[in-house]
């Protein structure tokens, strides 16, 4: 705080007198105005959040009346026949997210370990800044790259190659189209990676140096230090990073719509096209017939909302129960 800010409040000769009393009265008025404003800001925000929940809920009620609660798990999405069901879309959403996380988490963790524990400072500094900046790349740009650059590469090289690998190839069998669940997962992995790296690196950085030194003094190798001292202490931060990435992957719509092929059917393998909740909303919205059609698309949004909120709440609960308790005991032992 600058000194003149203080002297402005309690200047000499300002304490007594009508003018100061008036000023105080005015400032009391100002104070009330400030308080009211603050309440208004908080109230407005609360109203917006409530409005969101109520709005999405009420607009999807028509669809639920039409299709019943079976909307959530029924597999058929066929607007022409008046059949609306989110089941396959939910499966594909979970599948793309799971595959994306399988790809992304080990790479993200390895990168974070390298940046925080192994790399020399001259390398880790610029590299961390670079990855942090890339977290700002808009998802539409990642989607464009996936669509125009990766799709042909996947159709001609990656997918035929994966299908030819023994045993694992079973996961990738069938014709290689390019747009597929696998490609969508790769795009999601690229999109969520920078945030994962930045947050995990921050979590590793928060582990006290003394923990590492103690492990080293006991004869641990560098990797053992990371595994036995750094990982347990950073567990909460890393799980938070993964939860965030899962939430973002579940909810991503545009980039996925560009590369998944948009075919709401049960996936036969990872190289077949699919459709997620988000990509279906993007594709169906414009062509949805007013009334039940629009309401059903909004209901897809409601299902997606429930899914992401559940994942977030689950992640938070996981943090509080497991990792939180462990961090607590570790703190007590320290």
């Amino acid at each position, binding site marked *: *705080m*600058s000194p003149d800010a203080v002297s402005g409040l309690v200047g000499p000769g300002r304490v007594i007198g009508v003018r100061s009393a008036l000023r105080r009265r005015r400032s009391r008025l100002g104070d009330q105005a400030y308080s009211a404003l603050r309440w208004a*800001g908080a109230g407005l925000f609360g109203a*917006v959040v409530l409005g*969101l929940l109520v709005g999405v809920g009420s607009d999807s009620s028509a669809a639920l009346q039409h299709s019943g609660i079976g909307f959530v798990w029924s597999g058929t999405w066929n607007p022409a026949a008046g059949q609306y069901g989110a089941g396959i879309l939910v499966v594909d959403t979970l599948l793309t997210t799971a595959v994306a996380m399988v790809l992304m988490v080990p790479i993200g963790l390895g990168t974070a370990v390298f940046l925080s524990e192994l790399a020399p400072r001259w390398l880790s500094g610029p590299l961390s800044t670079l990855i942090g900046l890339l977290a700002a790349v808009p998802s539409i*740009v990642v989607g464009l790259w996936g669509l125009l650059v990766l799709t042909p590469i996947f159709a001609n090289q990656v997918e035929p190659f994966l299908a030819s690998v023994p045993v694992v190839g079973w996961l990738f069998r069938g014709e290689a189209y390019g747009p597929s669940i696998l490609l969508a997962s790769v795009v999601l992995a690229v999109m969520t990676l920078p945030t994962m790296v930045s947050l995990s690196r921050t979590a590793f950085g928060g582990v006290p140096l003394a923990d590492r030194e103690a492990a080293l003094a006991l004869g641990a190798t560098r*990797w053992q230090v990371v595994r036995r001292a750094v990982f347990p202490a950073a567990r909460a931060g890393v799980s938070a990073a993964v939860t965030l990435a899962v939430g973002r992957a579940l909810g991503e719509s545009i980039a996925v719509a560009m590369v998944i092929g948009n075919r709401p059917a049960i996936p036969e393998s990872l190289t077949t096209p699919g459709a997620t909740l988000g990509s279906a909303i993007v594709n169906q*919205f414009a062509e949805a017939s007013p009334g039940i059609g629009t309401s059903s698309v909004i209901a897809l949004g409601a299902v*997606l909302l429930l899914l992401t*909120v559940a994942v977030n709440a689950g992640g938070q609960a996981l943090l509080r129960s497991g990792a939180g308790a462990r961090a607590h005991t570790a703190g007590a032992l320290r």
Partner: protein
Amino acid sequence: MSVLLAPSRRELVRTAARRSLRRRRIVGTVVQGLCVVAVVAAVAPLVALVYYTVTRGASTLSWAFLSHAPTPPFIPGGGISTAITGTAEIVGLAIVLAIPISLLAALFLFERSGKLAAALRFSADVLTGVPSIIIGIFAYAVLVLPLHQFSTLAASFALAMLMLPIMIRADEEAMRTIALDLWEAGIALGARRGRVARSVVLRGALPDLVTGNLLAIARAAGETAPLLFTLATPLAAMTLLIYTDGTAAFPSAQRTAWATALVLLSFVLLLSVAARLVAWRISRRAH
């Protein structure tokens, strides 16, 4: 320990320790190698992504491209001026909506503790996790459907909703870096809360506030999904133009998409770099 052991036992322990160390070192080296592989696997696609955007976008980019209005498909000479001004308008209006509300809500959180503040903080966290497409649907339901028309206002409303929770949490964090004693000192001097908020909290946290808000703006500026439901034409925003032209099957549209992506990427990265510079200047001044 070795004193208690017979010489033969001692030898045994020593070889065991040596063997264990060798094994641990091998495992360590392998894992470190895997970490380097992970770094390459992480950086390569990200760099490739930026590389493709720059090389494919730059060939189309020109002053005329930026300043001319779009032309119908297959008619050359079109630009993206409407998309640039459209994005600027939408994001600008969203900023005007979001910053005052988020600042006041953050002050509320900063000065109050209790169930209401906790509930507000919780709803900010929930809203941060809500997919942007759902916010688009919401804006469509409350502003587009009742008024029977797509509008910039609805788009700005959606982006403001995206920015709000991020800004509120970042603002509160920034305010918390101002020591509570300073706030208490201000109150103890007899200053009104509003005055302390203005002269102590906001002024002290200003650089951090700027950083947090810039990052929130950068994120909202790159959003596409909310605009899909609120704007009448893809020509009214850069992200939408990238989507429609990128998914179009003819090369000229794809070239436009790449060039627009380059403009958008530069804009967003510029905001992000600016945010970092502000943060970096504070940390340097603090030392």
